[in-house]
Protein backbone atom coordinates (compact mmCIF):
# COMPACT_ATOMS: atom_id res chain seq x y z
CA UNK A 1 0.00 0.00 0.00
CA UNK A 2 1.33 3.38 -1.02
CA UNK A 3 -1.41 5.60 0.18
CA UNK A 4 -2.76 3.94 3.30
CA UNK A 5 -1.08 2.89 6.48
CA UNK A 6 -3.07 0.56 8.72
CA UNK A 7 -2.16 0.73 12.39
CA UNK A 8 -3.66 -2.49 13.71
CA UNK A 9 -5.42 -5.74 12.87
CA UNK A 10 -9.13 -6.47 13.14
CA UNK A 11 -8.92 -7.05 16.86
CA UNK A 12 -12.54 -6.38 17.71
CA UNK A 13 -13.97 -9.09 15.47
CA UNK A 14 -11.50 -11.62 16.81
CA UNK A 15 -12.27 -10.71 20.39
CA UNK A 16 -15.99 -11.37 20.00
CA UNK A 17 -15.38 -15.10 19.79
CA UNK A 18 -13.30 -15.63 22.87
CA UNK A 19 -14.10 -12.63 25.08
CA UNK A 20 -16.51 -11.96 27.84
CA UNK A 21 -14.95 -13.87 30.70
CA UNK A 22 -15.44 -10.88 32.99
CA UNK A 23 -12.16 -11.26 34.86
CA UNK A 24 -10.81 -7.82 34.01
CA UNK A 25 -11.04 -4.68 36.08
CA UNK A 26 -14.33 -2.81 36.15
CA UNK A 27 -14.25 0.53 34.53
CA UNK A 28 -15.61 3.81 35.62
CA UNK A 29 -15.50 6.87 33.52
CA UNK A 30 -16.96 9.43 35.82
CA UNK A 31 -15.10 12.58 36.69
CA UNK A 32 -14.51 11.40 40.22
CA UNK A 33 -12.64 8.16 39.57
CA UNK A 34 -10.02 7.17 37.12
CA UNK A 35 -10.57 3.68 36.01
CA UNK A 36 -12.23 3.87 32.64
CA UNK A 37 -12.52 4.87 29.15
CA UNK A 38 -12.82 1.24 28.37
CA UNK A 39 -10.36 1.27 25.51
CA UNK A 40 -7.33 1.71 27.72
CA UNK A 41 -8.06 -1.22 29.96
CA UNK A 42 -6.13 -4.42 30.04
CA UNK A 43 -7.57 -7.78 29.13
CA UNK A 44 -6.76 -10.48 31.65
CA UNK A 45 -6.54 -13.03 28.87
CA UNK A 46 -3.79 -11.27 26.95
CA UNK A 47 -1.17 -11.38 29.66
Amino acid sequence: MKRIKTLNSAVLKQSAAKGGCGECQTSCQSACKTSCTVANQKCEQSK
Partner: protein
Amino acid sequence: MVHTFQIKDKNIALDVNSGCVHVLDKLCYEIVSALEPPLTKETPEFLYGAIQDEPREDIDEAYSEIYELYSDGTLFSEDSYENIALDMKKRSPVKALCLHVSHDCNLRCKYCFADEGAYHHDRSLMSAEVGRRAIDFLIKNSGSRRNLEVDFFGGEPLMNMSVVKSTVEYAREQEKIHGKNFRFTITTNGLLLNDENTEFINKNMYNVVLSLDGRREVNDKMRVRADGGGSYDIIMPKLKKMADSRGQDNYYVRGTYTRNNLDFSKDVLHLADLGFKQTSVEPVVGDESEDYMIRREDLPKLFEEYENLADEYVRRRADGRWFNFFHFMIDLEQGPCVIKRLSGCGAGCEYLAVTPDGDIYPCHQFVGHEEYKMGNVADGEISSEIRETFENCNVYTKPSCRDCFAKFYCSGGCMANACLLCGDINTPHELSCELMRKRVECSLYIKACEAE
Protein backbone atom coordinates in the same frame (compact mmCIF):
# COMPACT_ATOMS: atom_id res chain seq x y z
CA MET B 1 -19.59 2.37 10.02
CA VAL B 2 -16.50 4.37 9.14
CA HIS B 3 -15.56 7.58 10.91
CA THR B 4 -13.21 9.89 9.01
CA PHE B 5 -11.57 12.89 10.59
CA GLN B 6 -8.57 15.16 10.20
CA ILE B 7 -6.34 16.49 12.93
CA LYS B 8 -3.44 18.69 11.80
CA ASP B 9 -1.71 16.85 8.94
CA LYS B 10 -3.28 13.45 9.64
CA ASN B 11 -6.21 12.01 7.71
CA ILE B 12 -7.67 9.13 9.66
CA ALA B 13 -10.37 6.55 9.03
CA LEU B 14 -11.62 4.46 11.93
CA ASP B 15 -13.46 1.34 10.87
CA VAL B 16 -15.72 1.17 13.89
CA ASN B 17 -16.76 -2.48 13.76
CA SER B 18 -13.37 -4.07 13.14
CA GLY B 19 -11.52 -1.53 15.27
CA CYS B 20 -9.00 -0.92 12.47
CA VAL B 21 -7.39 2.47 12.22
CA HIS B 22 -6.13 3.63 8.81
CA VAL B 23 -3.98 6.66 8.13
CA LEU B 24 -4.76 7.91 4.62
CA ASP B 25 -3.27 10.27 2.10
CA LYS B 26 -5.44 13.18 1.06
CA LEU B 27 -6.94 11.53 -1.98
CA CYS B 28 -7.88 8.32 -0.19
CA TYR B 29 -9.37 10.41 2.58
CA GLU B 30 -11.59 12.24 0.13
CA ILE B 31 -12.68 8.99 -1.47
CA VAL B 32 -13.41 7.13 1.77
CA SER B 33 -15.38 10.10 3.03
CA ALA B 34 -17.54 9.99 -0.10
CA LEU B 35 -18.18 6.23 -0.23
CA GLU B 36 -21.09 4.20 1.12
CA PRO B 37 -20.96 0.40 1.37
CA PRO B 38 -21.29 -2.02 -0.35
CA LEU B 39 -18.29 -1.23 -2.54
CA THR B 40 -17.84 -2.42 -6.10
CA LYS B 41 -14.58 -3.74 -7.47
CA GLU B 42 -14.51 -1.08 -10.18
CA THR B 43 -14.05 2.56 -9.26
CA PRO B 44 -17.53 4.10 -9.04
CA GLU B 45 -18.10 6.62 -11.86
CA PHE B 46 -19.21 9.43 -9.57
CA LEU B 47 -15.75 9.69 -8.04
CA TYR B 48 -14.19 10.97 -11.27
CA GLY B 49 -16.72 13.78 -11.28
CA ALA B 50 -16.47 14.50 -7.58
CA ILE B 51 -12.67 14.69 -7.56
CA GLN B 52 -11.73 16.82 -10.52
CA ASP B 53 -8.24 17.91 -9.61
CA GLU B 54 -6.70 14.41 -9.63
CA PRO B 55 -5.84 12.25 -12.65
CA ARG B 56 -8.02 9.18 -13.28
CA GLU B 57 -5.21 6.72 -12.75
CA ASP B 58 -4.49 8.15 -9.31
CA ILE B 59 -8.13 7.84 -8.37
CA ASP B 60 -8.11 4.24 -9.61
CA GLU B 61 -4.99 3.45 -7.65
CA ALA B 62 -6.34 4.97 -4.46
CA TYR B 63 -9.67 3.25 -4.89
CA SER B 64 -8.05 -0.14 -5.39
CA GLU B 65 -6.21 0.21 -2.08
CA ILE B 66 -9.47 1.11 -0.39
CA TYR B 67 -11.21 -1.82 -2.01
CA GLU B 68 -8.52 -4.16 -0.75
CA LEU B 69 -9.18 -3.10 2.85
CA TYR B 70 -12.87 -3.50 2.24
CA SER B 71 -12.46 -7.08 0.99
CA ASP B 72 -10.21 -7.87 3.96
CA GLY B 73 -12.97 -6.76 6.33
CA THR B 74 -11.03 -3.85 7.75
CA LEU B 75 -13.02 -1.03 6.17
CA PHE B 76 -16.81 -0.69 6.04
CA SER B 77 -16.97 -3.95 7.94
CA GLU B 78 -20.31 -5.12 9.24
CA ASP B 79 -21.76 -4.77 12.68
CA SER B 80 -22.11 -8.29 14.00
CA TYR B 81 -22.40 -7.47 17.67
CA GLU B 82 -26.02 -6.65 18.24
CA ASN B 83 -26.99 -10.22 19.14
CA ILE B 84 -24.12 -10.45 21.58
CA ALA B 85 -25.44 -7.31 23.22
CA LEU B 86 -28.90 -8.81 23.57
CA ASP B 87 -28.00 -11.45 26.10
CA MET B 88 -25.00 -9.94 27.75
CA LYS B 89 -24.82 -9.26 31.45
CA LYS B 90 -27.88 -11.27 32.31
CA ARG B 91 -27.46 -12.42 35.89
CA SER B 92 -23.82 -11.43 35.79
CA PRO B 93 -22.13 -11.84 39.16
CA VAL B 94 -20.95 -8.93 41.28
CA LYS B 95 -17.21 -8.46 40.98
CA ALA B 96 -16.44 -5.03 42.34
CA LEU B 97 -17.46 -2.90 45.28
CA CYS B 98 -16.87 0.71 46.04
CA LEU B 99 -16.72 0.96 49.83
CA HIS B 100 -17.61 4.36 51.19
CA VAL B 101 -15.62 3.89 54.36
CA SER B 102 -15.97 7.55 55.23
CA HIS B 103 -18.83 9.90 54.55
CA ASP B 104 -16.75 12.70 55.82
CA CYS B 105 -13.99 14.71 54.23
CA ASN B 106 -11.20 16.99 55.32
CA LEU B 107 -11.48 19.15 52.21
CA ARG B 108 -14.39 21.22 50.93
CA CYS B 109 -13.98 20.96 47.17
CA LYS B 110 -16.52 23.17 45.51
CA TYR B 111 -17.48 20.79 42.71
CA CYS B 112 -17.84 17.75 44.97
CA PHE B 113 -20.73 15.57 43.76
CA ALA B 114 -20.73 13.95 47.20
CA ASP B 115 -21.87 17.09 49.00
CA GLU B 116 -18.38 17.52 50.48
CA GLY B 117 -18.31 13.91 51.57
CA ALA B 118 -21.60 13.77 53.39
CA TYR B 119 -23.77 12.59 50.43
CA HIS B 120 -26.74 14.61 51.61
CA HIS B 121 -26.76 12.81 54.96
CA ASP B 122 -24.99 13.09 58.29
CA ARG B 123 -21.24 12.72 58.25
CA SER B 124 -20.40 9.15 59.25
CA LEU B 125 -17.77 6.42 59.16
CA MET B 126 -18.17 2.77 58.19
CA SER B 127 -17.74 0.25 60.99
CA ALA B 128 -15.43 -2.76 60.78
CA GLU B 129 -18.52 -4.95 60.94
CA VAL B 130 -20.08 -3.38 57.84
CA GLY B 131 -16.71 -3.72 56.08
CA ARG B 132 -16.69 -7.46 56.79
CA ARG B 133 -20.30 -7.87 55.74
CA ALA B 134 -19.49 -6.13 52.47
CA ILE B 135 -16.66 -8.58 51.77
CA ASP B 136 -18.97 -11.51 52.58
CA PHE B 137 -21.59 -10.05 50.28
CA LEU B 138 -19.11 -9.68 47.45
CA ILE B 139 -17.77 -13.21 47.77
CA LYS B 140 -21.26 -14.66 48.01
CA ASN B 141 -22.46 -12.86 44.88
CA SER B 142 -19.36 -13.30 42.75
CA GLY B 143 -20.21 -16.70 41.31
CA SER B 144 -17.24 -18.16 39.48
CA ARG B 145 -15.35 -14.85 39.10
CA ARG B 146 -11.94 -15.11 40.64
CA ASN B 147 -10.66 -11.53 40.49
CA LEU B 148 -12.63 -9.27 42.80
CA GLU B 149 -12.10 -5.56 43.33
CA VAL B 150 -12.67 -3.31 46.27
CA ASP B 151 -12.13 0.42 46.04
CA PHE B 152 -11.89 2.38 49.28
CA PHE B 153 -13.65 5.61 48.64
CA GLY B 154 -15.31 8.43 50.50
CA GLY B 155 -15.51 11.21 51.35
CA GLU B 156 -11.93 10.73 52.37
CA PRO B 157 -11.08 7.08 53.13
CA LEU B 158 -7.89 7.86 55.08
CA MET B 159 -10.15 9.37 57.75
CA ASN B 160 -11.16 5.80 58.54
CA MET B 161 -7.88 3.99 58.03
CA SER B 162 -8.50 1.45 60.78
CA VAL B 163 -11.51 0.08 58.89
CA VAL B 164 -9.57 0.11 55.61
CA LYS B 165 -6.99 -2.07 57.33
CA SER B 166 -9.39 -4.44 59.06
CA THR B 167 -11.36 -4.91 55.84
CA VAL B 168 -8.22 -5.72 53.86
CA GLU B 169 -7.11 -8.20 56.51
CA TYR B 170 -10.50 -9.87 56.58
CA ALA B 171 -10.63 -10.12 52.77
CA ARG B 172 -7.12 -11.63 52.64
CA GLU B 173 -8.29 -14.31 55.05
CA GLN B 174 -11.46 -15.01 53.13
CA GLU B 175 -9.89 -15.07 49.67
CA LYS B 176 -7.90 -18.16 50.57
CA ILE B 177 -10.96 -19.98 51.84
CA HIS B 178 -13.04 -19.16 48.78
CA GLY B 179 -10.44 -19.26 46.02
CA LYS B 180 -10.68 -15.56 45.15
CA ASN B 181 -8.14 -12.90 44.40
CA PHE B 182 -8.84 -9.45 45.85
CA ARG B 183 -7.47 -6.30 44.28
CA PHE B 184 -7.71 -3.20 46.39
CA THR B 185 -7.61 0.37 45.27
CA ILE B 186 -8.00 3.63 47.14
CA THR B 187 -9.04 7.10 46.05
CA THR B 188 -7.68 9.82 48.31
CA ASN B 189 -7.07 13.55 48.48
CA GLY B 190 -3.73 12.79 50.16
CA LEU B 191 -4.08 15.16 53.10
CA LEU B 192 -3.58 12.41 55.69
CA LEU B 193 -0.88 10.47 53.87
CA ASN B 194 2.06 9.61 56.11
CA ASP B 195 4.83 7.00 56.10
CA GLU B 196 2.78 4.46 57.94
CA ASN B 197 -0.31 4.44 55.76
CA THR B 198 1.79 4.80 52.62
CA GLU B 199 3.53 1.58 53.53
CA PHE B 200 0.23 -0.17 54.11
CA ILE B 201 -1.18 1.14 50.85
CA ASN B 202 1.88 0.16 48.83
CA LYS B 203 1.82 -3.30 50.25
CA ASN B 204 -1.86 -3.92 49.67
CA MET B 205 -3.25 -1.67 46.96
CA TYR B 206 -3.13 -2.48 43.30
CA ASN B 207 -3.92 1.07 42.27
CA VAL B 208 -4.11 4.43 44.00
CA VAL B 209 -5.95 7.50 42.77
CA LEU B 210 -4.55 10.76 44.13
CA SER B 211 -6.53 13.95 43.64
CA LEU B 212 -4.87 17.18 42.53
CA ASP B 213 -6.18 19.58 39.90
CA GLY B 214 -2.93 20.93 38.49
CA ARG B 215 -1.48 24.41 38.90
CA ARG B 216 -1.55 25.83 42.43
CA GLU B 217 -3.97 28.64 41.66
CA VAL B 218 -6.30 26.29 39.78
CA ASN B 219 -6.24 23.66 42.50
CA ASP B 220 -6.68 26.11 45.33
CA LYS B 221 -9.66 27.80 43.78
CA MET B 222 -11.73 24.59 43.98
CA ARG B 223 -9.95 22.23 46.39
CA VAL B 224 -10.13 24.17 49.62
CA ARG B 225 -9.62 23.21 53.24
CA ALA B 226 -12.34 23.50 55.85
CA ASP B 227 -10.84 26.84 56.95
CA GLY B 228 -11.10 28.15 53.39
CA GLY B 229 -7.37 27.99 52.55
CA GLY B 230 -5.89 26.18 49.57
CA SER B 231 -4.63 22.61 49.69
CA TYR B 232 -1.89 22.50 47.05
CA ASP B 233 1.11 23.27 49.25
CA ILE B 234 0.24 20.65 51.82
CA ILE B 235 -0.86 17.96 49.42
CA MET B 236 1.41 18.14 46.41
CA PRO B 237 4.61 17.00 48.18
CA LYS B 238 2.74 14.12 49.81
CA LEU B 239 1.35 12.94 46.51
CA LYS B 240 4.75 13.22 44.90
CA LYS B 241 6.26 11.10 47.62
CA MET B 242 3.51 8.54 47.27
CA ALA B 243 3.92 8.34 43.49
CA ASP B 244 7.68 7.95 43.80
CA SER B 245 7.31 5.30 46.45
CA ARG B 246 5.26 3.28 43.96
CA GLY B 247 7.96 3.57 41.32
CA GLN B 248 5.76 6.01 39.33
CA ASP B 249 3.46 3.17 38.36
CA ASN B 250 0.08 1.74 39.41
CA TYR B 251 -1.33 5.06 40.51
CA TYR B 252 -2.93 8.11 38.93
CA VAL B 253 -2.75 11.68 39.95
CA ARG B 254 -6.08 12.99 38.80
CA GLY B 255 -7.68 16.34 38.51
CA THR B 256 -10.95 17.87 37.48
CA TYR B 257 -11.06 20.80 35.13
CA THR B 258 -13.86 23.33 35.15
CA ARG B 259 -14.89 26.48 33.34
CA ASN B 260 -12.30 28.26 35.50
CA ASN B 261 -9.45 26.52 33.69
CA LEU B 262 -10.48 25.85 30.13
CA ASP B 263 -6.75 25.91 29.39
CA PHE B 264 -6.47 22.66 31.34
CA SER B 265 -3.67 21.34 29.13
CA LYS B 266 -1.43 23.59 31.23
CA ASP B 267 -2.56 21.68 34.30
CA VAL B 268 -1.83 18.34 32.73
CA LEU B 269 1.63 19.55 31.73
CA HIS B 270 2.13 21.04 35.18
CA LEU B 271 1.54 17.60 36.69
CA ALA B 272 3.96 16.11 34.18
CA ASP B 273 6.53 18.82 34.99
CA LEU B 274 6.26 17.95 38.66
CA GLY B 275 7.40 14.46 37.71
CA PHE B 276 4.09 12.60 37.80
CA LYS B 277 4.14 9.93 35.10
CA GLN B 278 0.53 8.76 35.39
CA THR B 279 -1.92 11.60 34.98
CA SER B 280 -5.60 12.12 34.42
CA VAL B 281 -7.53 15.36 34.20
CA GLU B 282 -11.22 15.19 33.41
CA PRO B 283 -14.06 17.63 32.86
CA VAL B 284 -16.38 18.48 35.73
CA VAL B 285 -19.90 17.17 35.15
CA GLY B 286 -23.02 18.29 36.96
CA ASP B 287 -25.81 20.78 37.27
CA GLU B 288 -25.34 23.40 34.59
CA SER B 289 -26.59 26.21 36.78
CA GLU B 290 -23.20 26.34 38.54
CA ASP B 291 -20.94 28.98 37.06
CA TYR B 292 -17.90 26.66 36.97
CA MET B 293 -19.68 24.07 34.78
CA ILE B 294 -18.53 23.52 31.23
CA ARG B 295 -20.96 24.95 28.67
CA ARG B 296 -21.54 24.04 25.06
CA GLU B 297 -19.94 27.29 23.94
CA ASP B 298 -16.69 26.19 25.60
CA LEU B 299 -16.30 23.18 23.33
CA PRO B 300 -14.22 24.76 20.53
CA LYS B 301 -11.68 25.97 23.07
CA LEU B 302 -11.57 22.56 24.78
CA PHE B 303 -11.19 20.73 21.46
CA GLU B 304 -8.23 22.94 20.65
CA GLU B 305 -6.76 22.20 24.08
CA TYR B 306 -6.99 18.45 23.52
CA GLU B 307 -5.33 18.76 20.11
CA ASN B 308 -2.49 20.87 21.42
CA LEU B 309 -2.04 18.60 24.39
CA ALA B 310 -1.86 15.67 21.98
CA ASP B 311 1.02 17.30 20.08
CA GLU B 312 2.93 18.12 23.23
CA TYR B 313 2.25 14.59 24.48
CA VAL B 314 3.81 13.05 21.38
CA ARG B 315 6.77 15.40 21.64
CA ARG B 316 7.47 14.66 25.29
CA ARG B 317 7.03 10.93 24.97
CA ALA B 318 9.63 10.93 22.22
CA ASP B 319 12.23 13.18 23.86
CA GLY B 320 12.67 11.47 27.21
CA ARG B 321 9.92 13.23 29.13
CA TRP B 322 7.53 10.31 28.78
CA PHE B 323 4.26 10.41 30.70
CA ASN B 324 0.79 8.91 30.44
CA PHE B 325 -2.42 10.84 30.13
CA PHE B 326 -5.31 8.58 31.02
CA HIS B 327 -7.68 9.70 28.28
CA PHE B 328 -5.12 9.36 25.55
CA MET B 329 -4.33 5.77 26.40
CA ILE B 330 -5.72 3.37 23.84
CA ASP B 331 -4.45 -0.11 23.24
CA LEU B 332 -5.13 -0.78 19.58
CA GLU B 333 -3.87 -4.35 19.58
CA GLN B 334 -4.73 -5.80 22.96
CA GLY B 335 -7.49 -3.75 24.46
CA PRO B 336 -10.53 -5.32 26.04
CA CYS B 337 -12.81 -7.68 24.14
CA VAL B 338 -15.80 -6.28 22.36
CA ILE B 339 -18.15 -7.75 24.94
CA LYS B 340 -16.51 -5.69 27.64
CA ARG B 341 -16.64 -2.65 25.39
CA LEU B 342 -20.35 -3.06 24.83
CA SER B 343 -21.27 -3.42 28.43
CA GLY B 344 -19.49 -0.47 29.96
CA CYS B 345 -18.89 0.26 33.60
CA GLY B 346 -21.12 -2.45 35.04
CA ALA B 347 -22.76 -0.13 37.57
CA GLY B 348 -25.85 -1.63 39.17
CA CYS B 349 -24.88 -5.21 38.37
CA GLU B 350 -21.16 -6.04 38.33
CA TYR B 351 -20.15 -2.99 40.29
CA LEU B 352 -21.97 -1.67 43.37
CA ALA B 353 -21.33 0.93 46.04
CA VAL B 354 -21.78 0.41 49.79
CA THR B 355 -22.38 3.28 52.22
CA PRO B 356 -21.13 3.51 55.83
CA ASP B 357 -24.49 2.07 56.92
CA GLY B 358 -24.15 -0.85 54.53
CA ASP B 359 -26.72 0.40 52.05
CA ILE B 360 -26.12 -0.71 48.48
CA TYR B 361 -26.38 1.60 45.46
CA PRO B 362 -25.65 1.05 41.73
CA CYS B 363 -22.41 3.04 42.02
CA HIS B 364 -20.76 5.77 44.04
CA GLN B 365 -22.53 8.53 42.10
CA PHE B 366 -25.99 7.26 43.05
CA VAL B 367 -25.30 7.17 46.76
CA GLY B 368 -27.77 9.31 48.65
CA HIS B 369 -30.39 9.20 45.88
CA GLU B 370 -32.89 7.11 47.83
CA GLU B 371 -34.84 5.93 44.81
CA TYR B 372 -31.75 4.01 43.67
CA LYS B 373 -31.15 2.21 46.94
CA MET B 374 -30.87 -1.49 46.14
CA GLY B 375 -30.54 -3.14 49.55
CA ASN B 376 -28.16 -3.55 52.48
CA VAL B 377 -25.18 -5.83 53.05
CA ALA B 378 -26.72 -6.93 56.36
CA ASP B 379 -29.18 -9.25 54.62
CA GLY B 380 -27.38 -9.33 51.28
CA GLU B 381 -30.51 -9.10 49.13
CA ILE B 382 -30.54 -6.64 46.24
CA SER B 383 -33.43 -5.21 44.28
CA SER B 384 -33.74 -7.21 41.10
CA GLU B 385 -35.79 -4.44 39.53
CA ILE B 386 -33.01 -1.86 39.73
CA ARG B 387 -30.43 -4.47 38.80
CA GLU B 388 -32.31 -5.40 35.64
CA THR B 389 -32.63 -1.79 34.58
CA PHE B 390 -28.85 -1.49 34.64
CA GLU B 391 -28.22 -4.94 33.18
CA ASN B 392 -30.42 -4.21 30.24
CA CYS B 393 -28.64 -1.01 29.36
CA ASN B 394 -25.78 -1.19 26.87
CA VAL B 395 -24.45 0.53 23.79
CA TYR B 396 -27.19 -1.01 21.63
CA THR B 397 -30.09 0.08 23.81
CA LYS B 398 -29.16 3.73 23.48
CA PRO B 399 -30.08 5.30 20.16
CA SER B 400 -27.33 7.90 20.29
CA CYS B 401 -24.63 5.34 21.16
CA ARG B 402 -25.65 2.88 18.51
CA ASP B 403 -24.71 5.39 15.81
CA CYS B 404 -21.69 6.82 17.60
CA PHE B 405 -18.22 6.09 16.27
CA ALA B 406 -16.77 6.15 19.78
CA LYS B 407 -19.02 3.42 21.13
CA PHE B 408 -16.34 0.75 21.54
CA TYR B 409 -14.00 3.18 23.28
CA CYS B 410 -16.53 4.87 25.51
CA SER B 411 -18.91 1.94 25.98
CA GLY B 412 -21.98 4.06 26.41
CA GLY B 413 -21.05 6.75 28.83
CA CYS B 414 -21.76 7.23 32.49
CA MET B 415 -25.16 5.90 33.52
CA ALA B 416 -25.17 8.10 36.60
CA ASN B 417 -24.87 11.19 34.43
CA ALA B 418 -27.61 9.81 32.19
CA CYS B 419 -29.99 9.08 35.07
CA LEU B 420 -29.26 12.03 37.30
CA LEU B 421 -28.67 14.77 34.73
CA CYS B 422 -30.67 13.63 31.72
CA GLY B 423 -33.42 11.77 33.59
CA ASP B 424 -33.09 8.55 31.58
CA ILE B 425 -30.55 5.76 31.71
CA ASN B 426 -30.59 5.51 27.92
CA THR B 427 -29.90 9.20 27.30
CA PRO B 428 -26.19 9.99 27.62
CA HIS B 429 -25.04 13.42 28.71
CA GLU B 430 -24.38 15.04 25.34
CA LEU B 431 -21.69 17.48 26.45
CA SER B 432 -19.68 14.62 27.95
CA CYS B 433 -20.15 12.72 24.68
CA GLU B 434 -18.70 15.58 22.66
CA LEU B 435 -15.59 15.58 24.82
CA MET B 436 -15.32 11.80 24.78
CA ARG B 437 -15.44 11.73 20.99
CA LYS B 438 -12.78 14.40 20.76
CA ARG B 439 -10.53 12.46 23.13
CA VAL B 440 -10.93 9.30 21.07
CA GLU B 441 -9.99 11.21 17.92
CA CYS B 442 -6.94 12.69 19.63
CA SER B 443 -5.87 9.29 20.94
CA LEU B 444 -5.99 7.85 17.45
CA TYR B 445 -4.15 10.88 16.11
CA ILE B 446 -1.41 10.23 18.68
CA LYS B 447 -1.18 6.62 17.52
CA ALA B 448 -0.84 7.85 13.95
CA CYS B 449 1.97 10.23 14.98
CA GLU B 450 3.75 7.59 17.01
CA ALA B 451 3.57 5.10 14.13
CA GLU B 452 5.72 7.34 11.95
